[in-house]
């Protein structure tokens, strides 16, 4: 388990921290994108993508979120960046998709299917467990659950 953020500086951060802590006890997940996607992605942008506010990469290609079905690690990442449980995340995206405001995230049964989708889809953003083998893709990894938009992301 990764260390949680420490010493919130005010009540707002304390409450936000408790929300994240309550939803996400394990943060061993990472995101990855198609190799052709060289865009810098910080936490704020990832969050905007996961809550459907940012629907396109800077290149203009549509973001396609890809998840493993019934995967605890994906759930952790969703909880961390969208503050939603998987079922709430599903209903949230149904609201978006059924009202014509975006496309539902794709879910896959196996890691291989997900990797193939991200490899073949220019705008794909895949979310997998930390120890899943992701070769030939660009990884996006964040070390701690900081909710500050000024947090420095670590991505490569």
């Amino acid at each position: 388990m990764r260390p949680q953020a420490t010493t919130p500086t005010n009540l707002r951060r304390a409450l936000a921290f408790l929300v994240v802590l309550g939803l996400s006890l394990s943060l061993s997940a990472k995101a990855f994108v198609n190799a052709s996607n060289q865009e810098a992605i910080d936490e704020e942008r990832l969050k905007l993508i996961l809550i459907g506010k940012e629907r396109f990469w800077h290149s203009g290609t549509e973001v396609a979120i890809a998840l493993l079905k019934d995967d605890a690690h994906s759930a952790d990442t969703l909880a961390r960046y969208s503050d939603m449980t998987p079922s709430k995340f599903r209903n949230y995206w149904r609201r978006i998709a059924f009202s014509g405001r975006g496309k539902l995230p794709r879910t896959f049964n196996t890691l291989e299917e997900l990797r193939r989708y991200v490899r073949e889809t220019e705008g794909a953003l895949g979310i997998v467990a930390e120890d899943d083998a992701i070769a030939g893709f660009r990884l996006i990894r964040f070390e701690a659950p900081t909710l500050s938009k000024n947090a420095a992301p670590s991505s490569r």
Partner: protein
Amino acid sequence: MKSCPVRPSASTSSHPLRRFLPLFIVLLAFDCLALGREFEFGGFISTGYLKSSHYNYLADSEEGTTAFTEMGLHGSWTPRKRTTVNGEIFAFELGPYGNYEPKIDYLFLDYNFSHQFGIQIGRVNREFGLYTHLKDIDITRASILLPMGTYDHRYRYNSSAVEGGAAYGTFGILEDTYLDYFAYLGRSEVNEDGGLVGYALTNLSRHSDDLAICAANSKTTFGGQLWLNPSLERFRVGLGFSRFQDIHLAADGNFNPDFPSPFLAGQGFLLEANDLNVSNLQLSAEYAIGNWTFVGEKLWTDTDFQFTALIGSTLNPPQDLVSDSQSWYLSVERQFGPFQTTLTYSEESNNSARIVLPAPPRTSKDLQLALRYDIYDFWSMKAEIHDIEGTGRLFNQFQQNPVLDESDWTLLALKSTFSY
């Protein structure tokens, strides 16, 4: 007697969007399929049951009815970078409303310059409060029926979408604080058999067995919605405004022989509301934490219009009339694995304008307990019970509630929905 004015109705006129719609769809389909671009579709079908202890609410619920079906098919295409085309065809039956007539719920071209600014052109979903643009999509919530005074399911076609354009976006305004906006301008539809007309003529319809709408159309509607998303995640507060302008309604018929005024009993009439304007203001708040979601909304509505009455052979001078209403609700939702339960309390009060007769105050209070069970991701079952006080939402345009003789009544609703 003066005959009912036949004016082009919004629901039947040849609007430019309607003329070009089929061509638009074919071209887009060809573009997407031929060039293999991104295409996604989905849909839902649901069937339900309504049973009330008294009165007919929405459908013939006093006897118990299964005339409660909805189906929708939506698609989203991405033919170009930053460009999507989104549409949904929707059909429903809700007692005398809908009749499975397929309608384009929305169909618009969306160009997204950035997350801060995007535009939509076509028949666009009207975002107003939490559920106006989601009214048709019950799989996104635990309850079957939305709070009756704030979101009436019979208003679908005139409230859900407008033919015109919209702008939307999200701004970061403070650290971790975002402001979402959605603004629209266009024309909305007034269906002669729809809920808006039913609501407007409810009182009069109880004194005329042959009341008939002979014109219903509207011109401009505009409005917007702001959402402030403070740093505490999944909490948001919203303020929505909308205005429907220059609606025209006309109805004719004969007053019943037992009409309260002996001078009017049995007389023929032609009533017109011109330049009818409806302004809505809605305050919303939603807070989700873990498996809990708390929601509250309040809606204020003001209506003004010029009323003209021709009764028998007497043309009464035009009158400027106003009415207002308020409604609000609070709800709390809890998820337990595949189960969701929601407890909602709502109230509505309405001071209707006098149309020939003084209108009695229309109020209603509703305590609603809803349970949803997701058997699979694609199949959900719902049940809910309403304990209702008041008759403010009981329409009579199809003579479904000619007499209001009880204040307290209950409603049971069941629904099963498949989505794909």
